[in-house]
């Protein structure tokens, strides 16, 4: 615990906030150019910063900050351990590519400044959520990101955009209600809200049923945010109407941060993964894999199909984490990173197609590979890595998850997970067949390739897919192993590190 470097961590929240604040003013000056540059600079800086800070973290253990402001002792405790570093890096990668993509994409939406401010607030909320060590601050930052995302989902102002965003708002309001109920019960039991004290408190007062009830509440609340199956209904409606970069941000990162991160952090580090929790997590994961995959096959709208596929991939993450074995957790976390990368790539691709052809209907699209070669190749890479074909990154995380399942004797789960990835490949081949691989239709004769910035974003993500796939040992060693050690050590991690 080195004080003094607190400022380093605080930057993650303050910088996007400040830039978001001044963005409307800049919006007045110049409609398009300056906001673009400014936002891309901030997201790029965040990306570089998280990697650099990450480097130090790896060598010097955990970062907690306590610093004073204008003389008064402020106790803002932010922790950056391996797991939150991994999430930070994921957030910044996807947000950088999304902002790059939206330079061209948001042209015809108008009012970029507004859009960027909301986006930056969402990033700030997510960063805050990842860094916080306190149950209630997780809830607060969760709400921040949620509010920003309501606004962004409804950005298109069309009838169904508004309706989808309203539905999303209402459902997450209910979810937050249950989360607050859970937090208050925990507060009642342990008298405090910071992870370490809650962990100690729970350990002292052996209220097993109470903790179980709170776990259920959290699972419902954060599960809805993470679009697990019984609570997934809002995602497939929110995505088609949201603008492409937003749905990339939404299903690429927001689900994982506000849903998966919260559940994993609380269940593994605070409550400690009991047999009941792990079975519930695994069964939920399995159901969401199959429900998501099977519905996705019948879809005709490309974005709805990608939304359902996100639900199914989230299922893989939860199955991985649910096993509780270090390898399973490693696989789950690796899948968080991979899924963020290739799912946002696929959404950005669908955005590019929508902008070029104006339609999202799969059966209307002909062989676009001729006119849009770059988008076709990146989409192919993305689809193959989702399905878990070896040279790309998706394969390694699924492989680790399946090995963990087999090692913990969950053979049925392993077989079903494998079947899930076959069905995943099936509907991605349907996309390929309809959108790119078939004979070019006449009406798309004059379709042009996606503009520069959009294709540049997709290429970066596609390269990332390949690079992670090929250099997976390096990626695992630097980012994932520290995160896994923390989670695998479970509740004991809090005793010796954070009990100040």
């Amino acid at each position: 615990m080195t004080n003094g470097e607190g400022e380093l961590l605080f930057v993650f929240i303050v910088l996007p906030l400040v830039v978001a604040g001044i963005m409307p003013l800049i919006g007045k000056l110049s409609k398009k150019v300056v906001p673009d540059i400014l936002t891309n600079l901030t997201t790029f800086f965040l990306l570089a910063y998280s990697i650099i800070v990450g480097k130090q973290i790896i060598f010097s253990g955990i970062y907690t900050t306590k610093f004073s402001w204008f003389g008064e002792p402020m106790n803002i405790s932010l922790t950056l351990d391996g797991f939150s570093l991994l999430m930070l890096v994921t957030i910044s990668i996807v947000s950088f590519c999304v902002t790059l993509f939206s330079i061209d994409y948001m042209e015809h939406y108008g009012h970029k400044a507004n859009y960027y401010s909301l986006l930056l607030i969402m990033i700030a909320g997510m960063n805050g959520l990842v860094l916080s060590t306190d149950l209630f601050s997780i809830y607060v930052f969760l709400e921040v990101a949620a509010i920003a995302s309501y606004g962004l989902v409804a950005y298109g102002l069309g009838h169904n955009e508004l309706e989808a965003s309203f539905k999303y708002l209402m459902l997450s309001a209910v979810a937050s209600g249950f989360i607050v109920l859970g937090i208050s019960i925990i507060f009642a039991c342990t008298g405090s809200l910071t992870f370490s004290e809650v962990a100690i408190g729970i350990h002292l007062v052996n209220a097993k049923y109470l903790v179980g009830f709170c776990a259920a509440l959290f699972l419902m609340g954060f599960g809805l945010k993470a679009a697990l199956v019984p609570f997934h209904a809002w995602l497939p409606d929110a995505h088609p109407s949201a603008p492409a970069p937003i749905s990339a941000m939404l299903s690429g990162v927001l689900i994982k941060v506000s849903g998966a991160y919260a559940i994993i952090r609380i269940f593994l580090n605070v409550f400690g993964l009991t047999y009941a929790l792990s079975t519930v997590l695994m069964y939920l994961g399995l159901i969401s894999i199959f429900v998501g995959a099977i519905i996705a096959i019948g879809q005709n709208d490309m974005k709805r199909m990608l939304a359902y596929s996100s639900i199914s991939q989230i299922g893989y993450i939860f199955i991985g984490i649910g096993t509780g074995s270090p390898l399973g957790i490693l696989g789950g976390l690796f899948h968080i990173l991979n899924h963020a990368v290739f799912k946002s790539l696929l959404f950005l691709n669908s955005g590019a197609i929508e902008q070029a052809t104006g339609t999202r209907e799969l059966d209307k699209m002909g062989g676009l590979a001729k006119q849009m070669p770059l988008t076709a190749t990146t989409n192919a890479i993305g689809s193959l890595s989702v399905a878990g074909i070896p040279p790309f990154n998706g394969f390694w995380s699924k492989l680790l998850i399946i090995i963990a399942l087999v090692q913990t004797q969950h053979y049925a789960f392993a077989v079903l997970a494998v079947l899930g990835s076959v069905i995943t490949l099936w509907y991605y081949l349907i996309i390929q067949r309809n959108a790119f691989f078939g004979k070019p239709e006449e009406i798309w004769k004059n379709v042009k390739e996606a503009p520069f910035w959009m294709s540049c974003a997709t290429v970066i993500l596609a390269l990332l897919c390949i690079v992670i796939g090929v250099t997976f040992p390096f990626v695992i060693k630097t980012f994932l192993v520290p995160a896994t050690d923390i989670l695998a050590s479970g509740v004991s991690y809090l005793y010796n590190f954070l009990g100040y």
Partner: protein
Amino acid sequence: MTKKMNESFASLVILVPIIGAFTIPLFAKISPRMRVLAATIIAFSTSLLAMSLIPFVIGGNEFILRKPLILGFDFVLIVDALSVFMSIAASFIGALIVLYSAGYISHDENQTEYYFMVLLFIGSMMGLVYSANLIFMYIFWEITAICSWRLIGFYRLKEFVVKANKAFLITFLGAVVMLLGFILIYNQTNSFDLTTMRGTMVPGMAVLLILIGMFSKSATLPLHTWLPDAGIAPSTVTSLLHAAVLVKIGVYAYARIFCWTFQMPDTWYQVIPVIVIISSLVAAGAALVENDLKRILAYSTVSQIGYIFLGLSTMNPIGIAGAILFLLMHGLAKGGLFLCAGIVEHNTHKRDIRELGGLIKTMPITAICFLLCALSVIGIPPFGGFFSKFMVIMGAVKAGQFWIAGLGLFIAVLTAVYLFRVFNMVFLGDYSKLDIDIKEKTKSMLFVVIVLAGCSLLAGIFVNYPMKLVNVATSEITRWLTPWLAAQHY
């Protein structure tokens, strides 16, 4: 050959085609001719590299290159007689096919992707052949699945792409189930490295799963329907798939995993020959009834693959040697058959054999090459096919399975019947049906077909040269087998 040389050659054999594949788009920018030239040079250099490993391996010594990564996924290359023989067979025929495709798809579009995928295919095949780590073997296995998906869907028509998807899905299902089998083994021996696990007993469940994967890749009965459907691809692709590379992967994996390394529970040694013989019987029956030229040849591949599996599953030296030799002979002969079919289709644009007839007058060379290759596939002596089929049958007999050997010979007669049915219908018979006059156009296509037919004949007559390498490979495989064989009262 110093150790350094072998190491470099082994890794070169894999890297040259894969990196070469990536350079093809660059050459395409220069000019179409350059692209074709580059592709053929790369393909032939791969096969030359593979052949250069023979002197090292013929002495019977093997060479293992190991690069440890995390979690037991260390990258292991093994250069021994089995892998060298397999890589030569695959790369030589692959190179010929690339040469042939220069003439064949000269006027189709997206050829760059075609050459890229073919070279990537050969490269990943080399990778698979030399890798001794189950996970890397799986990786190359999947890359070939991707390449075959793109190649089968080459003509981009809607129903063709549906067939390509079907092929990709079935092979992926099999491969993923096989991966489960690997993980079961990993669970038991917690290592993926084959070199350290020679002779260990493997649980029945893992065997079943891995077999499903192999059967899906090399198209044996329950999972074979994708291979005839893949007939819609350009015939260079089908010949690449059927003869040279794709179907051989499953069989090679069987040889490397179940003959070279693991020992299966005893019931499996009775069950596999039965499955495999039924598969080749059904495929032979189907080939007798089919009317599409390429589908017949595809079904005949399915039935010949049955023989290779039969040879390998007999677990005695002569059976295994026969199966390994079969790989080469079948590759040459079936490649020739497909390329002749390619010439016929290229000129007449007809695929249904009932519409064709009397082509021997206009295309004499193709007809003769077709006949020679057909005889080699049937297994008639002066051609190489005879020795391999003979040894496989002898292996089956020595393993005590007389009924299966008898059925095998009956299937050989069936093969003769349907191959000659095709030959009579397409090349002999009355010429009136075809109105357009067909001449044998491109010389490069003919040259390749003649080379393949010649190789089948020469391989038959001078069979003792390939046999040397095969004997070394068999002795290596049976090194751990002999105590087990003794136990089986042979």
